[in-house]
Structure formats: structure tokens, C-alpha cells
């Protein structure tokens, strides 16, 4: 078998392997552009459909989530709009456009936020609330790598440089801080996830039934904490003293 013949076979195989990926890229790009075009012409429902299809295909990207939030907001679906903005915030918490639009969407919600939420913990652990989870993870990994690198240099290469020791100690503090914060974020996401109320209004009831006493009413876009899930219901907490049960379909998990 000649070398040229072998090369041809290899090229054909590579082409066959890459073809589905290229096709997928074409489809998703077309959906992306169709979504943008539909949004610009005011067909917000179509824009929602296109962006949502992309998100459901497994693309996790803050920019896509931001667009989906915009499309939902224009389609007068405040609950889903805030849900997707909040999801985008997890990885792009400092994006100014996202912050602006989320603030606008929040201004349309009906439930007054708890002023007590500006708590001491928010002041003391400001970086947790100022930085996105993704940013905190990146900072934790970077500071940790820097700390060990400096320690390695100090130990094996430049052992007589005292400054390296100080630098390693200085890197240890932010590394520890961001690692602990990232771990807490992981814990919080796993044990006390947040959700956004999706329908225009939801009765929060005292039990797992549609006939249980209505305790209070929440409206679209309000963010709640999920405390427990049971059957088709979940127990949610809003502010410090308001807890009750709603159907799982009434809220979207961030």
C-alpha cells in the first residue's frame, strides 16, 4: 500500500469524524443568528425558542443565558427572564450589561425585597457577593497554584531568598480565602439551592396540597431558597420568617 493511498484514507476518516461536529456547529450558529434576527424584528417568542433550544442542547454560556433572559423579558415573561439572568450571573457576575438588565428586571418584580438582606455577613464576606462563582473558583485555583509554586522555588531552587518565603505566605491567605469561599459556594448550591418564581403569582401554602391554607403570595421573578423537596412540592423560604410549600413547577432552579 503506497504512502499516498494511506494519506488519502486518513484524510477521509478525519473528514468523516469532523463532519457531524461541523454540521452541529452550523445548526447551532444558524439557531443563534435566527434567534438574534427574531429578537430584532420583535418576534420574541421565536427568539426564546431558538435560544432555549441552544441552552437545552447543553451549551452553558453566560452570553447565551443573557440573551435568553432578554428574549423572555421582552416576551413579558418576567419569571423566566430573571431565572436566566441569575443563571448567567453564576459565571459572569461582573458583566455590566447583565447587571443592568437584571437590575431592570428586578425593578419590575412585585415582591419587596428584604432590607435585612444587606446583612453583616454581606459586608464581612463582600467578595462572595461581589464575585461570581466562576471567578471565585478561578481565583482559588490561581492563588493556590501560585502558593505552591513559590513554595517549590523557595524549597528547591532559590532556598536562600527570604522574600520568596514572605511571598508564599502572602499568597497563602487569598488562596485559603477563595478556596473556602468556593467550597462554601459548592455547598450552598448543593444544599440550599435558590429558585425563581415563574408564574405571575404563586400561593405559598402550609402543606403539600392545593387545598392547604395559603400563607402568603409570591410573584414572578422573586428569588427564594429551596429548603426541601417532597413529591411534586418543595418547601421554600423567603426572607427570614416566611416559609411554605409550592409546586416544583412553579419555580425554576438557578
Amino acid at each position: 500500500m503506497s504512502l499516498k493511498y494511506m494519506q488519502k484514507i486518513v484524510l477521509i476518516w478525519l473528514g468523516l469524524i469532523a463532519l457531524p461536529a461541523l454540521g452541529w456547529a452550523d445548526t447551532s450558529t444558524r439557531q443563534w443568528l435566527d434567534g438574534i434576527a427574531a429578537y430584532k424584528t420583535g418576534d420574541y417568542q421565536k427568539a426564546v425558542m431558538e435560544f432555549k433550544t441552544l441552552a437545552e442542547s447543553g451549551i452553558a454560556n453566560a452570553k447565551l443565558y443573557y440573551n435568553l433572559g432578554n428574549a423572555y423579558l421582552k416576551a413579558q415573561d418576567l419569571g423566566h427572564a430573571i431565572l436566566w439572568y441569575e443563571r448567567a450571573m453564576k459565571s459572569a457576575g461582573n458583566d455590566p450589561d447583565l447587571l443592568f438588565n437584571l437590575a431592570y428586571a428586578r425593578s419590575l418584580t412585585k415582591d419587596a425585597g428584604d432590607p435585612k438582606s444587606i446583612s453583616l455577613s454581606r459586608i464581612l464576606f463582600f467578595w462572595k457577593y461581589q464575585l461570581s462563582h466562576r471567578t471565585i473558583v478561578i481565583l482559588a485555583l490561581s492563588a493556590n497554584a501560585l502558593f505552591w509554586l513559590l513554595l517549590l522555588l523557595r524549597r528547591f531552587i532559590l532556598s536562600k531568598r527570604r522574600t520568596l518565603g514572605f511571598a508564599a505566605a502572602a499568597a497563602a491567605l487569598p488562596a485559603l480565602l477563595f478556596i473556602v469561599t468556593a467550597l462554601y459556594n459548592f455547598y450552598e448550591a448543593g444544599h440550599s439551592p435558590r429558585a425563581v418564581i415563574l408564574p405571575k403569582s404563586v400561593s405559598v401554602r402550609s402543606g403539600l396540597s392545593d387545598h392547604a391554607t395559603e400563607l402568603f403570595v409570591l410573584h414572578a421573578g422573586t428569588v427564594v431558597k429551596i429548603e426541601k423537596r417532597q413529591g411534586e412540592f418543595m418547601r421554600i423560604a423567603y426572607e427570614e420568617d416566611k416559609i411554605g410549600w409550592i409546586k416544583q413547577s412553579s419555580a425554576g432552579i438557578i
Partner: protein
Amino acid sequence: MQKRDSRDRDRVLASPSEIIRKILLLSGVWVILIGFGVSSPAFSAQVQAVVDRSSIAAGESIELSVTIEDGDGEVDTSPIKAFKVISQGSSSNFEWINGRSSRKIIYSYLLMPLNEGSLTIPALPVTIDGRVQKTAPITIAVQKTAPGDQDARDVFLKAEVSNSNPYVGEQIQCVFTLYNAIQITAAQFLKPAFEGFSAKEIENQNTQRVVVNGREYISRKLIYVLIPRNSGALTIEPAEIQLNVVKRDSRRGMRSPFDDFFGRTQVEPRFLKSEPVTVSVKPLPPLPPNQAFSGLVGQFELSGTIERTQLTVGDSVTYALTLSGTGNIAEAPEVRPSAPEAFKHYNDSPQEEIQLSAEGYTGKKIFRTALVPVKPGEFVLPEVMLTYFDINDKHYKSLKTEPITLEVKASAAPGSQTPQVAPGPSSSAKHEVTFTGRDILPLNEDLDALENQSALSLHWFLFWIFLPAAGFGLAKLTADILRKEDGRRKRMARQTRKILQDAAKIDPREKEYLSLLYRALVTAIRAGSDTSGESLTWAEAETLLRQSGYDEQTAMAAASLLENIESANYSGGRANGGDRRELLERTRSMAGKLSR
């Protein structure tokens, strides 16, 4: 005969302790029998469900009793869907009739119908010792209460609207009135969803005594102000109230004055629903041409006031437009004047003073605009117009302010006609920047939005956190092992030097001298070949050194030297002192070569 007499006497004259023992024995037997009688027939347990009434009016409740005879079990009421179920607890009853014991456990429930018509209490599963038995299903007729009958009842709930045919945007009142002729407690009100309306409850509840069909009731009113958002037939779903009716204790013949004091009253839970109310919402009539509708429905007034009409260039003057009236004023759009081109204008945030009462929303909104003339002259502030739908006259009306003439003089500062608004924080023309329009920022159009940026999972995060630490640990371990190896070689080299020094101190003719040289050379070869041991043959020495990377010449020289020392040692000391010193020098030289 004598023996028999003796037995009889013993029987008659039984001691007191023996009598007590017999009594205890008999008692024990009875207790066991009773216990057996109570606990044994679990397999023959029977269940039965009964209700106190089979026909009730909507809003009334029935009492369901599930009786378990000769057994203990758990009743599952979850199959009951047509009623709201409230557990009233359980009681037990033990009977002993004609030598046969029987025990009953009665579970009581209060059922409140959720609908009208023929409702069924399905067969309820009762689990007794792992076995499931079912009660018989029961059908209950729930009759709709006729409006006439309603007034004859002890307690009922009514829903009314102030206007069942309003326009879109017209505010109406929805009043829920609870009438009770008897004492009630623990009332819990569940308002309807008010689909299609924006609803707000008026805080103060109105309680008064009223007479309905000659019977005195206490009425409590809950008033909601509703504004229909769409036209068409909108239904206000029934409101619900759950409450307890206080009843005289039926177990007592006469009610004593102390009953209330000691809480000797019975309460019966009730579940009341109001009738659904349908509101036919009319659309607003077509808007006359060339008019812009503000969306306001009600009765309103608009006025415009300005602080002064004679101004100087650069001065600031506030023009206030006040919109007041009754109706959906909270939804009023911003009303602003069209300032002449010679004026700069700055809008303040609107000031709202809106109250909610039984008549609906009433109040005013004030829109203030700061005007700063930049040119001298006479200018007219044009009229401001606003169109609303007058609910009394049933047509659109336009409100207009009067045009205002402003006289602007040139500034006193020579040669300056520009407004003095920029410098200084105390300038009256400096205003907080406020949003004049509201919208979101545009879409993101970059194609990198299609890149997957899945968040790092906890496992991968921990992996990447521990990876540098593991790398560091590995590096340290390797270094320690290398240092250890290096240290062993150095230690052996030191040992070689020490042995050679010892050899140099003694007389070469002594027998120990050659032994020391042998040990020193073997130690040096072992250190050079990174092996351990205290003896070597010259052949082994050569092989080891070659394998350790020494050149052939060195390996052979070391092996030869070892052979020479061994030969001198085993030749019985024939070598003289000079030869032995030479061996010392050669050994020292070889040790130095091997340690490099």
C-alpha cells in the same frame, strides 16, 4: 381413718399465707385470661365507617367515625378527595359482656365538602397488624344553599361587587361579608386569585351589627378595590373561610355560667365559600381622532403652576404639573411640558400622594420640571394636554393647562448670556441624573456564546486544588530520596577516610594493618558501586565497578589492588613495611578516585 381426718383438718386450717398465695395465683390466671381475651383476636378485627349525616348543605360539615373492633390499626384518609379532612383524634372503649371482652377504637374526622352534589367518601384502607381491611364507601348529598336559605343560617359568607358592568380600568369594590349569628373563633380567610384584575385590600375591616330577615347578625366586611385589566366576562372565584363555630356542650343539660370560664364549650369547624361573582367588563369606546389616550379611567383634574414668570438668563424656575383625582391614578404616565428651545429643562422624579379607601384610589401626582432660560426674550410655555376616560360621563375628556408667558431678561453679568448653571455644587440648576426612558440593553451577538463553559464540578475543583500540593509533595519525596542516597555515599567515604587514618596510625607490620586497608578499599568500592556489604572478591569488585559506570582501567586497578592486599594479608606477613605503606597510598588514591 386417722390419716383422712388429718388431711381434712389441714384443709380447714390452711395457713393465711397459703390463702394469700392461692388468691394471687387465681388473680394471675384471671389477668392472663383477660389479657389474652383482649389481645388475641386481632385476626377477627372489624372496621366500620359511619357518618352523622348523609345530606348536608354546602358549607356544613359532617362527622366521620371509623371504628375498629377488637384490634388496633391505622386509618388512611388520603383517598378522600372531595372533602377537606380534619382529624378530631381517637377514643377507645373496653367492654366486658357475658364473660366476653371487646374493645373498640374510634377515629373521628370532620369532613368539609369542597363541592356540591353527590360526593363519595371512598373505601378507606385500615391497616391492622399488617393486614389491610377497607371500610364501605359512603355517599353524601351536598345541597347547594339557596340564597334565601343562606340568610336563615347561623353563619354564611357573601360576595358582592359595587359594579358588575364596569369599563376596563374602572375601579370597583369587591366586598366579602361574613355574617354570624352565633359565636365563631379562629376564622381564616382565603381570598380568591382575582384573575384579570389588579386587586388591593383596604386595610380597615368594617364590623357592625345588622338585621337580616329579622335575625341579628354580626357582619364583618373585607373590601378589595379591583381594577379590571381586560374586557369580557371575568369571574371572581369564591373566597373561602375556615372557622370554628362555638356550640353548647351537648353532654350537659344546662349551660352553666362557669362553662365559658372553664372553657366547657364545643367547637365545630366549618368551611364556608362565597358564590362566584361574574363581572362583565366593557371595553372603552373608540378614541376620538387626534387624541392620545393616557390610560387613565376615572375623574381627574390637571393644573400647571410656575413660581414666577419674570426671569433672568441662567435663573432656575420650577414648573409643576399636578394631576389629581379618583381612579387608576397610580398608573398615570408622566406629564411634562414642552419647553421652548431657549430653555434647558430638567425633570424631577414625580411626587405621589395616593390614598386607598373604600371609594378606591384617590390622590395626586406632581411632575416638577426645572426650567433654565439661556436666552433673553418673551417665550410661551405651551399648554399641556392629557386625555382620560371620564367614568361618570362615559366619554373621553381632555384636560388642558393654560399657556404661560415667560419674560426673560438678560443676565446682569456684562457680556454673558450663557446660563450660570455649571459651576458650583449649590447651583439650583444642577439635577440628579434620572432615567428618562426604561429599557434593557441589547443582545450579545458574539459567536463565542456558543462555546460551552460548563462550571467546574466540586470533584474537579478538589482535584486541581490538590494537584499542586501533590506535585510539591512528590518533588520533596524525590529530593529526600536523592539526598538520602547521596548521604549514604558521603557517609561511606567518611568511613573509608577514617579507616585509612586508623591504618596510618599503626605499625605497618601489625596484622591489623592489612585488614584495615582491606576494609577501607571494600568500603570505597561499595560506596562507588552504591551497594552494601563488608567483603568482596577482586572479581566481584571489578564487576560491580564496571556495572556502576567506572571505566575498565579503574575497575581493574581497584580489583588488582584488592587482590594485592588480600595476597599480602594471606601470605603471612612476608611483605615488608615499605610495601605495606605503598599499599596504603594506593588504597588512599583509589578511594579518592572512586569517591569523585
